[in-house]
């Protein structure tokens, strides 16, 4: 497997860097020390109406040393990958820990973890995007743009693709040493119709989500393109929704984001105990409610994992050197678990972390970040059509767009790409100006049915934000279609204004 790892990364003096940093950290008094060496290559290609607006390659390279000195963290990083600099950076990290010890009131204790020596892990993908000539990528996006611009009713097309190859080396004083590589891709396309006479415009996006896949994933977007002009034209003419309570059948292309915000972030242990209180916020799902909080209906089974193929948070070992796993967060509608790192696991009385430590660059300290948090499908044979057939007056919500949730993960508001009116169990054309708004536990308790595994789709995002200094993390969320009863729907045209 090592031969699949970027040769430029393999060529770095990883063992020498580890030896220099870890030895110096131990000499200076660190009881724990870990070194990360990372090389993250990103390419972004953007086109506007078929013309290139940007082709940019970015490479972030650096080393990071994190130490524990008498229970106090110290962290330092540098862009120079020499053993001398690794040793100096380790000294710096120890010095930071000693300087700040007087005001660090907590003494850190970490869960044990078996030693994983010389482990290698590579994510599941077929074609490394960086092995595809850039001109071929631009040509594909140009073709997409031109085909849509030639369609009636499409005035503008913006398309882009972001691709990342992340290589990471980790070594610690305990003896764990891992080399990992993962690849991810995010295609995007927006078609716009402009009403030049009356003013105003509408947009329609493709639904293919960012994924832990290679360039082969672009073929999954292709079949969507043909339907975009008609969907956009229908949306332009669609009636504005009448505000009020509706039964919602929510497609996985929309529901993944609701899961992310209302379950994923709410079950992060660091948030639940206040570590993010001044920034990303806390959580209503506090540890005293573990095992008792009625999160949702009995059908609600949500798992955390960092192991599923093509998941954006999937990795072999986390940034604490922990082998990744899968576990329950909500089972039978009750809160039963949290996302943890090695610092937090002991506080819940757990012997091991579930592997959620992650830093988005060599210049950031690992913090607890989100696993792939997914709603499990029904075992029964329930299709999306079956869910729609069970609704007298409702809306079928497809695709994500706007999202917002409060700092304790209670009150949320989401829009989407496509809203289809459901009338007596059948789809009856699109609506527009729709937003749904709810309180997290009310919403999940109103979930009356979930679809079968055939309705299950892995959604996700590249850019989940958390932490200070701000870090972004890629994360996926799988879910089936699901039916929610009597959810408050706003007409966005009626909002704001005087």
């Amino acid at each position, binding site marked *: 497997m090592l031969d699949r790892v970027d040769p430029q990364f393999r060529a770095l003096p990883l063992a020498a860097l580890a030896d220099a940093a870890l030895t110096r950290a131990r000499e200076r008094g660190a009881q724990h020390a870990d070194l990360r060496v990372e090389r993250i290559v990103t390419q972004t290609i953007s086109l506007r109406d078929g013309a*290139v607006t940007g082709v940019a390659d970015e490479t972030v390279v650096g080393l990071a040393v994190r130490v524990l000195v008498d229970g106090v963290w110290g962290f330092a990083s540098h862009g120079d990958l020499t053993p001398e*600099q690794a040793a100096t950076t380790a000294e710096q990290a120890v010095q930071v820990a000693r300087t700040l010890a007087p005001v660090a*009131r907590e003494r850190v204790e970490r869960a044990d973890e078996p030693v994983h020596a010389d482990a290698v892990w590579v994510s599941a993908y077929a074609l490394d995007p960086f092995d595809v000539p850039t001109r071929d990528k631009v040509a594909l996006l140009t073709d997409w743009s031109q085909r849509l611009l030639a369609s009636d009713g499409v005035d503008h097309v913006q398309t882009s693709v972001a691709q990342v190859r992340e290589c990471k080396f980790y070594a610690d004083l305990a003896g764990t040493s891992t080399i990992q590589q993962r690849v991810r891709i995010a295609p995007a396309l927006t078609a716009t119709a402009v009403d030049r006479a009356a003013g105003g415009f509408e947009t329609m996006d493709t639904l293919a989500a960012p994924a832990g896949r290679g360039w082969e994933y672009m073929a999954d977007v292709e079949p969507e393109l043909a339907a975009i002009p008609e969907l956009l034209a229908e949306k332009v003419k669609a009636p504005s929704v009448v505000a009020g309570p509706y039964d919602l059948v929510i497609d996985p292309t929309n529901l993944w984001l609701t899961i992310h915000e209302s379950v994923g972030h709410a079950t992060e242990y660091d948030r639940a105990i*206040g570590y993010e209180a*001044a920034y990303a916020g806390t959580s209503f799902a506090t540890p005293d409610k573990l095992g008792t909080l009625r999160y949702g209906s009995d059908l609600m089974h949500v798992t955390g994992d960092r192991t599923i193929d093509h998941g954006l948070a999937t990795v072999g070992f986390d940034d604490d050197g922990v082998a990744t796993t899968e576990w329950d967060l909500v089972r039978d509608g009750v809160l039963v678990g949290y996302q943890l790192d090695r610092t937090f696991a002991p506080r819940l009385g757990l012997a091991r972390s579930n592997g959620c430590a992650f830093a988005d660059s060599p210049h950031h300290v690992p913090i607890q970040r989100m696993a792939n948090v997914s709603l499990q499908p029904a075992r029964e044979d329930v299709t999306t059509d079956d869910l729609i057939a069970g609704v007298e007056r409702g809306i079928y919500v497809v695709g994500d767009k706007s999202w*917002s949730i409060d700092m304790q993960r209670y009150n949320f508001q989401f*829009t989407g790409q496509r809203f289809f009116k459901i009338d007596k169990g059948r789809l009856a054309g699109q609506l527009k100006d729709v937003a749904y708004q709810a309180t997290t536990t009310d919403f999940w308790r109103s979930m009356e049915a979930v679809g079968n595994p055939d309705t299950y789709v892995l959604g996700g995002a590249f850019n989940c934000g958390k932490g200070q200094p701000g870090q972004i993390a890629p994360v996926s969320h799988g879910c089936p279609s699901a039916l929610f009863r009597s959810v408050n729907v706003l007409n966005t045209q009626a909002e704001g204004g005087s």
Partner: protein
Amino acid sequence: MSIAPQDLVEAALSVATLPCVSSVRDRTEANLRWANNGLITNGEMRSRTLTVTATADVEGGTAAGTVSQEIADVAEVAAVVAAAEGLARTGRPAEDAAPMVQNYAHNDVWTDPPETTSIEVLDDLAKGLGDAFERAEAARHLLYGFAEHAVETTYLGSSTGLRRRGVQPTGRLELNAKTADREASAWLGRTTRDFLDVDVVEAVDELSTRLGWASTKIDLPPGRYETLLPPGAIADLMIYAYWTANARDAEEGRNVYAAGDGATKIGQRIAELPITLRSDPLYPGLETVPFVDFTSSLDDTSWAFDGGLPIKETTWIDRGVLHELIRNRGHAIRTGTEPTPPPDNLIMDGGGTASLSEMIAGTKRGLLLTCLWYIREVDPERLLLTGLTRDGVYLIEDGAVVGAVNNFRFNESPVELLGRISEIGVAELTLCREWNDYFNRTIMPTIRVPDFNMSTVSQAS
């Protein structure tokens, strides 16, 4: 980092075979983070990034390619240049293509070394926090927050002979205090260039006052309320309006500044009061790098062909009238207008002189906000945004704060709000809450809106 950044820039230009702009950004950074009255994370970081944008004549026009790489050794430079030239040579024509920026006179001292920072900048703050944690324990309060100081020095060189150097210090303090039951919360932010002007004791005292206001709890339903938005809250809304001010989008009819049929709202009154919104890279205390050292801006404009272009003071709204939008040189050439690269600061002033205390005193019944959070776009046509109030909503009655109110979700458009502002206070230096990871330098007034739309109640405290 033994190689001087200027030498990396020159090395790139010397091996380039195509017209190109080469820049090196040297960044040092130190930070502290605390929660529950104790430090939780910290760090001291250093990085140096080389960015090369090459341009090439291709069939049908000019193409550009940009490659950026963290770099420590001059031996890595040639590969970066070759990669950028490869992207340009095999690229397709760009609509934003423009001739390279020619050399021009300026006062930068190219040979000066990078300026830096270190964890020592935060020494006094750390000591002050230690005392503050003890005081908070005694008062049964919990302190949370973050302090960061970063210094970036940018060296930019061009095939045209242009050499520019810019230094950007950026500091911020966010302090959040909660009661021990976490039922009441207060926040303040400070923007600073060097932390010499940060007074932790004063900041903690201010938060204690706010937590005192919250000793009385008042439940209010959703609805439209007369509302005072303090400078940090209005900054978050105006920054979003700034990030949307793309001239080309407006001309194409697809943003809030569109007037239809290819026209924009430039020249139209969008605020009833004489509000001016402007940016100025030389504004005292808000100085920013005065030349283009980026290849795209958050309004989605490409600046790949504009490296080194001077950034000038620009007035976006002039006494209530939309005056200018963001456009690069390529679009400016096509439309016979001037390029307007966006400075990294924003100043809003309506000539008001009232302090926040005076505006509270002048309120019969209304809400006072602390800050806004999780602001996202709902409808780009109106720039309708949603978001939440956070860390203190206070009810004012007969000129005095009488208690703390529940939080709300709002749905409002900052552009529509401009037309409904009924009073503007004195403009002051402020740190926004939502966007301060990306935007640190603002001067804003407190504003009064007679009918701010609180769409639903949030249970968050």
